[in-house]
C-alpha cells in the first residue's frame, strides 16, 4: 500500500557507502602483504591473497599475545557490562518505583556525573587504586566500568513504563519480599531494557582506551585497543629491529571488530525496544 521512493533509497545508499566503505577497505587491506598495502590500489584486492598468512602472523606474533588481548577484552567487557546492567536494573527500579527521601536529588547527582571528564577521574583513580594494590589487575578496568549513569537513567525510565504498579502490589499482597518481587516478577519485564544497557556498557568497555592505557603495565593484561595502539606505535618507534608490524595492525584491527559486529547483529532488535522508552521520555 505504501509507495517506495527510489530517490530516497538512492540517497540513503550513498550514506550507506560512506559508512561501509572504510570497513570494506579494512577487509581488503587485511588480505594484502605489507608491500602490496603500499603499492596497490587500496579499495581492491590483489592477486597475492595474504589474509591467512596475516591472520596466522597476528596470532603468533609476540608468543600469541593477540589472542590474550581478545580474551581479556571479552572478559573485561562481559563482566563489566553484566555487572553494570545488573546494578542499573536494581537502581533504576528503585528510583522509578519507590518514593524515598532524596530520590530525585540523588538521581540528579548521578546524572550530573555523566559530565565528569575521564581524565579528571582516571589519574586520581589510578593513585587510589595503587594504594590498595589494584593497579595492573583486571579489577582496575572492571570496577570503574561498573558505573553507568546513562544506564541508570535508561533503566529508570524503562522501569517506570514497563512495570505495572499493580504487579508489584499483587506481589506484596501475596507476601513476597521486595527482593523476591524484583527477581521473580520485575526482572523478566525489564529484560529488554537490561539488554540495551548491557549492549551500551559492552560497547563502552570494549572501546575503552584511556583507562587501561593508564592502569595496565603488563601486555598480558591489555585489552585489544591498547594492544593495537602499542603495535601501531612500535611501527613508528624505529630504533631497533621492530620489524614489519603494519600488516599486523591492519589485520588485527579487522579481526578485533568482528565479534562486536556479530553481537550487534544478533542482538539488534533489543536496541530499539529498550531505547524507545528512554528516547521519548528523555
Amino acid at each position, binding site marked *: 500500500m505504501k509507495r517506495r521512493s527510489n530517490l530516497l533509497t538512492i540517497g540513503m545508499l550513498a550514506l550507506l557507502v560512506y559508512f561501509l566503505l572504510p570497513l570494506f577497505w579494512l577487509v581488503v587491506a587485511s588480505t594484502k602483504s605489507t608491500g602490496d598495502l*603500499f603499492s596497490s590500489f587500496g579499495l581492491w584486492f590483489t592477486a597475492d591473497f595474504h589474509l591467512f598468512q596475516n591472520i596466522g602472523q597476528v596470532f603468533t606474533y*609476540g608468543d600469541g599475545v593477540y589472542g590474550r588481548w581478545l580474551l581479556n577484552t571479552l572478559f573485561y567487557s562481559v563482566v563489566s557490562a553484566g555487572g553494570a546492567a545488573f546494578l542499573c536494573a536494581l537502581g533504576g527500579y528503585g528510583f522509578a518505583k519507590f518514593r524515598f527521601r532524596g530520590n530525585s536529588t540523588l538521581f540528579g547527582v548521578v546524572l550530573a556525573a555523566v559530565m565528569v571528564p575521564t581524565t579528571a577521574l582516571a589519574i586520581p583513580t*589510578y*593513585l587510589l*587504586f*595503587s*594504594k590498595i*594494590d589494584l*593497579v*595492573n589487575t583486571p579489577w582496575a578496568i572492571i570496577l570503574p566500568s561498573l558505573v553507568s549513569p546513562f544506564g541508570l537513567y535508561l533503566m529508570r525510565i524503562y522501569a517506570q513504563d514497563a512495570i505495572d504498579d499493580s504487579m508489584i502490589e499483587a506481589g506484596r499482597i501475596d507476601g513476597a519480599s521486595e527482593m523476591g518481587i524484583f527477581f521473580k516478577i520485575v526482572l523478566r519485564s525489564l529484560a529488554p531494557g537490561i539488554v540495551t544497557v548491557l549492549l551500551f556498557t559492552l560497547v563502552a568497555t570494549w572501546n575503552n582506551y584511556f583507562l587501561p592505557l*593508564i592502569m595496565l*603495565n*603488563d*601486555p598480558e593484561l591489555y585489552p585489544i585497543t591498547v594492544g593495537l595502539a*602499542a603495535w601501531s*606505535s*612500535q*611501527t*613508528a*618507534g*624505529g*630504533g*631497533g*629491529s*621492530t*620489524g*614489519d608490524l*603494519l600488516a599486523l595492525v591492519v589485520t588485527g584491527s579487522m579481526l578485533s571488530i568482528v565479534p562486536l559486529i556479530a553481537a550487534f547483529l544478533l542482538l539488534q532488535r533489543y536496541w530499539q525496544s529498550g531505547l524507545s522508552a528512554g528516547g521519548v521520555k528523555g
Partner: protein
Amino acid sequence: MKRFKAAAVVLVLALAACSGGGDDETTKAAPASQADIDKAMQTPTELTFWTWVPDIQKEVDMFTAKYPAIKVKVVNAGQGEPQYTKLRTALKAGTGAPDAVQIEFQYIPTFSLTKSLVDLRPYGAEAQKDKFVDWTWSQVSGANGEIWAYPQDTGPMGMLYRQDLFDKYGIEVPKTWEEFAAAARKLHTADPKVYLTNLASNQNGAYMGMLWQAGAKPFATTGPESVTVNLNDEVAKKVGDYWGGLIKEGVVSADPDFTDPWYQALNRGKYATWLTAAWGPVFLTGSAKSTSGKWRAAPLPQWTAGENKAGNWGGSTTAVVTGTKNPVAAAKFAEFLNTDPAVTKRFATEQFLFPATKALLADQSFTGLKPEFYGGQTVNQVFSDISGTVDTQFQWPPFLDQAVNDWDETVGKSFADKSDTGAALDQWQQRVSDYAKNQGFKVGQ
C-alpha cells in the same frame, strides 16, 4: 662558565618529593661484600625486567643458566616514552615497578633526579668502567660519581647515503656542512623530487645528536637545585639556523620519520642520505629492502674542515629501580647482561644492537662484516670508528620529556611549517626555562 669535569648529571639528593620508596640508603650504601653477593645470587629470587628488546629471553636465559636461583620475568611495557610513563606512575604509586629496566641514555638524569635509580657502585660497577666506551660511561655517571646504569647499546651518528644517486647527480660525499648545503641545493635543483636529506620535524633525538656534534651544551646541572638551559646560544643558533635555512629554502625536507610515508620515501629514493645512528644500517636493511646495494656509510659532515666529531642518537642502558627488594641480584643481572662477552655478542649479532663495549667494537667478527645492502662496505667499522669520536661532555636535562615536548612544538614545528627557526629557538628556551623555574630549579644560562 667552567664545565664540570664529570659529564652527565648531578643527583639532587635532598629533594624530589613523592618518588615511590625513595630511601636514602641506596646512595650512601656501603659496598656489598663478595659474601653478600654470593649469598644473594644463591637465594631464590624473582626479578622483573622491563625491556623492549625483541627476543631478549635468550639472553636472559643465559643469565638464569648461570644463576639458577634467580628467575627473571621479562615484560615489554612499551618502547621508550610509553614505558617511562608507566614506570613513573608505578614509582609514584609505590607498587608495580620492575627491579631492572631498560632506559635510554637521555632519560637517566630524569629518573635519577627523582631518586628512582639505584647507584650501582656498591655492587662493583666501578670495576666495569674500562669495558665500556668512554662517552657511554660518562653518560651513565652522576656528578658525584654515582653509576646509574650499564650501557647496553649505542647510536653514534653518521651518514648513510645513496651511492647511486650521488653518482647520478655528480655529488661528492660532503666532508663539511658547507659542502653538504651546497650539495643539497645542487641535488634538489637537478631533480626537484629528491632531497639530499630529511631532517624529521618530530625527531628531537636526531636534532640533539646534531647539537651534540656541534659541541653545544644545551643543558648542564650546576648544583643540586640548579640547571643551565642554553637552547639559543651561539652554537645552538648555528645549528638551528643551518637546518631551518635549508628546510625553508626547500632543499631539505622535514617529513616526520618512522611513519608509513617516510618508509615509502626511503624505498622510492626521495632522500639521498639518512643522517642516522649506528643502529640505522640494520634498520634500513629491513625497512628499505628494495634499495639493497645502493647505500654506503660515512661519518657526518663537520662544522670545521678536518675535524672529526660526532654526536649520539639513541641507544639504551639497563638500570636498577629504587624500591627493588633485591638490589644485589638486580645489579648483577644488569651487569651480566651488558658485560658478559657471549651475551653482548649475541645482542650485536642477533638483535643488531650497536655495542657499547670496547671489546666488541674492536672485534673483527663484528666490524669485519660486509653486508650486501651496503655493497660489501664494512659498515660496522665505520660506525665503530665514529663511536670513538663522540664528545664525552654532553649532558641531558633532568626533565627530558618536557624539553622534548617543547622542542616538538617550537623548533620541530618551525621545520614543519618552514617558519622562523631563530624565533622558535627563543621560544624553546623560554618554555623550558619557565618549566624549570616552575619546578623549583634555579635556572641559569
